[in-house]
C-alpha cells in the first residue's frame, strides 16, 4: 500500500487544482467492507470509487456502484476486470487465494485492521487515510471519532441506573436470536450507557423463553426493517416470553439501522448518541 505514495499525492494535488476528473481516472478505487467504504466516503474520495462489496451500503449513494459480491467470496478475475489502481479492504476479505492472486497482479491491496469494538475504529480510519494518500485528513477524522467515542464513554459512565437492554437479531416464527457477551450488540449497548441483558453465552445465539424472562430487559433493541413497524412491535409484545418482561409490558422497543448500530465504523459515536437518547431521553 505504501508503494505508490507519489501518484496518490499527485492525484491530491490535481484535485486541488480543480481537475478531479483526471485524478479519478488515475486512481480507480475499490472499497471492500461496510466501515471501510464509509471512511473512504467521509475522507472525500467517493468520486474515485468504481466498485464496492455487498456489505457496503452506506451512504446510500454507493449502492449504485457495481457490487463485487460478498467480501469473503471474491472473484479474482472479476475484481481485476474493474481495473482498480488501489483496493482498500477490510481485514476479513477473502478467500486468501483470491487476495493472493490480486496482489500478484501488481494492484496495491491495502488490508485494514478488523474492528470488533469501538477502540479499534480510530486506528482503522488512520490506516484508510494512509492507504488513500490522505494521512492528515485521516488523522483529523480519527481524532474527531476518537473524541466522540470518549464522550460516549464518559456519558455512559455517568448513567446512574443502567437500563438492561436485550438485542434481538431476529425473531423468526417466535424463535429469538439474541446478542450475548462479546457480541457487537453488547459493545454498542455499553457505549450508550446500557447493560446487556443477555449474559451467559457468547455471540449471537438462540435464547430460550425462560432465559428471556430471567433476563428481564427494560428495553428491547432491534434492527430497522421494512414494512409496518406497528405490526412488528405488536408481534414483539404479543410474544409469550417477551410480553412478560418489563420491556414487553411497557412496549419499550427501540429500532435502529443495522449498519449504523453494529457496523463499528466512523458513525459509531452517532449510533451511541442516538441509542443513549432513545434509552434515557435526555441531551448528553
Amino acid at each position, binding site marked *: 500500500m505504501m508503494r505508490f505514495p507519489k501518484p496518490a499525492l499527485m492525484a491530491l494535488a490535481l484535485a486541488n487544482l480543480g481537475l478531479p476528473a483526471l485524478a479519478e481516472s488515475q486512481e480507480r478505487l475499490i472499497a471492500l467492507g461496510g466501515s471501510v467504504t464509509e471512511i473512504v466516503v467521509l475522507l472525500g474520495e467517493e468520486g474515485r470509487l468504481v*466498485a464496492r462489496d*455487498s456489505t457496503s451500503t452506506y451512504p446510500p449513494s454507493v449502492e449504485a456502484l*457495481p*457490487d*463485487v*459480491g*460478498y467480501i*469473503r*467470496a*471474491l*472473484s*479474482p*478475475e*472479476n*475484481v*481485476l*476486470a*474493474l481495473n482498480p489502481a488501489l483496493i482498500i479492504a477490510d481485514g*476479513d476479505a477473502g*478467500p*486468501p*487465494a*483470491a487476495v*493472493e*492472486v490480486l496482489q*500478484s*497482479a*501488481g494492484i496495491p491491496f491495502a488490508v485494514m485492521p478488523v474492528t470488533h469494538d469501538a477502540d479499534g475504529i480510530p486506528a482503522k480510519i488512520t490506516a484508510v487515510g494512509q492507504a488513500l494518500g490522505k494521512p492528515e485528513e485521516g488523522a483529523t477524522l480519527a481524532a474527531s471519532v476518537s473524541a466522540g467515542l470518549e464522550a460516549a464513554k464518559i456519558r455512559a459512565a455517568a448513567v446512574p441506573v443502567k437500563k438492561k437492554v436485550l438485542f434481538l437479531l431476529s425473531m423468526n416464527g417466535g424463535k429469538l436470536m439474541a446478542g450475548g457477551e462479546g457480541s457487537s450488540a453488547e459493545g454498542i449497548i455499553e457505549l450508550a450507557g446500557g447493560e446487556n441483558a443477555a449474559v451467559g453465552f457468547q*455471540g*449471537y*445465539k438462540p435464547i430460550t423463553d425462560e432465559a428471556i424472562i430471567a433476563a428481564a430487559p427494560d428495553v428491547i433493541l432491534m434492527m430497522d426493517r421494512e414494512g409496518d413497524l406497528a405490526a412488528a412491535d405488536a408481534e414483539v409484545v404479543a410474544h409469550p416470553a417477551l410480553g412478560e418482561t418489563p420491556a414487553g409490558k411497557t412496549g419499550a422497543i427501540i429500532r435502529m439501522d443495522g449498519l449504523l448500530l453494529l457496523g463499528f465504523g466512523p458513525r459509531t459515536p452517532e449510533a451511541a448518541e442516538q441509542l443513549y437518547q432513545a434509552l434515557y431521553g435526555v441531551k448528553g
Partner: protein
Amino acid sequence: MTALASSRARPGLRPVPYGLTAGLILLVLAASILSLTSGAAGLGLGTLLKAPFSAEGLTLRDKVVLYDIRLPRLVMGLAVGAALAVSGVLLQGLFRNPLADPGIVGIGAGAGLGAVMAIVLGSFLPLWMADLIGAHLVPFAAFFGGWAATLLLYRAATAGGRTDVATMLLAGIALGALAGAVTGVMVYMADDKQLRDLTFWGMGSLAGATWGRLAAALPLILLVLLIAPGLARGLNALALGEAQAAHLGHNVQSVKRRAIFGAAAATGAAVAVSGGIGFVGIVVPHLLRLAMGPDHRLLLPHSALLGAGLLVLADLASRSIVAPAELPIGILTALFGAPFFLWILLRQKGALRG
C-alpha cells in the same frame, strides 16, 4: 484405450460409440478454449492470438489473468470434474447402486466435517501454527476428514479380509448422522462470519484455484484417473454378483479396496480444493450409461471427459452470470443438473432398470 479397441471384436457387446467419444473430446476442447478466452477482464481470443507476434506481448495484468487466474482455474475445473465423475462411476459400480456417490463411503460427511471444524476451530489455533498453515488449513482438514471417514468405514465393514458392502453402506449412514450432529455443534458455536464461510464452502467454488493448490491436488487425482481403467473389468464382473466375479477369476477384495480408496483420494482432493460440488458424480455416469450402456471400460474414460467438460462450463457460468460477483458453482451444478436429470428419467422410464 486398448480396452476400447478389443471390445469391438467381441460379440454381444455394444459397439464403441466413436461419435460420442469424438463429441466429448470436442466438448472438453471447446469448453477449455472458451474458459481461457472469456471472462470479465476482457482478454479475448483475438488478443491472445496476437500477443506472441506483437512487440510488447501481454501486459502484467493480462499475464496474471491468463496464467494465474484462468489457467489454474481451467486445470482445476477439468481435474475436479473428472475426479467427481470417475469416483461416481467407481462407487456406483462397486455398490451396484445407481444412487451411490462419494457421500456413501463417508467422504462427503468426513470432508464436510473436517472443513467446518477447520473454519470454526481454526481461530483457536496458536498463532505460530496459524501462520504456518494459514490458508491451507481448510483444504487439509477436508481431505483428511474424508480420508479418515473412509478408512473408518472400511475397517468397520471388513472382517477376515472381506469387505461387506452392505455393512459399509449402513455404517456410512451412521457416520453421516454423527458428522451431521457434530457439524451442528460447530454451526452453533460459529460466529456470523464463520457461518457465512461454511455456507459458502458447502456450495463450492473454483475461485481459490492457485498453482500451489493444484500441485497438491492434481497428482492424487491423476493417479486415480490412471488406476481407474484397470478396475473396469473387475467392476463389470461385480455387476453379476460377488461370488460370480470371484468365479470369473477376479480378486474381488482387491477391486473393492482400490475402488473405495481411489474414489476417496480423488474426491477428497477435489473437495479439498473446491468445496462441495454436488450432482456431477451422479448425473454424469447416468447420462453416459443411458447413452452407451453399463460397460465400465467405456464408462470410466467417457465419464472423465464429460465431467471435466461440464464442470468447466459450469465454472464459466458461475463467474459470468452475476459479475463482478461470483455465483458458487455448486448451486449451478445442482440447479441445472437436477432438472435435466429428472427430465431424462421421465423420458426414459425403465431404462435404468434394463
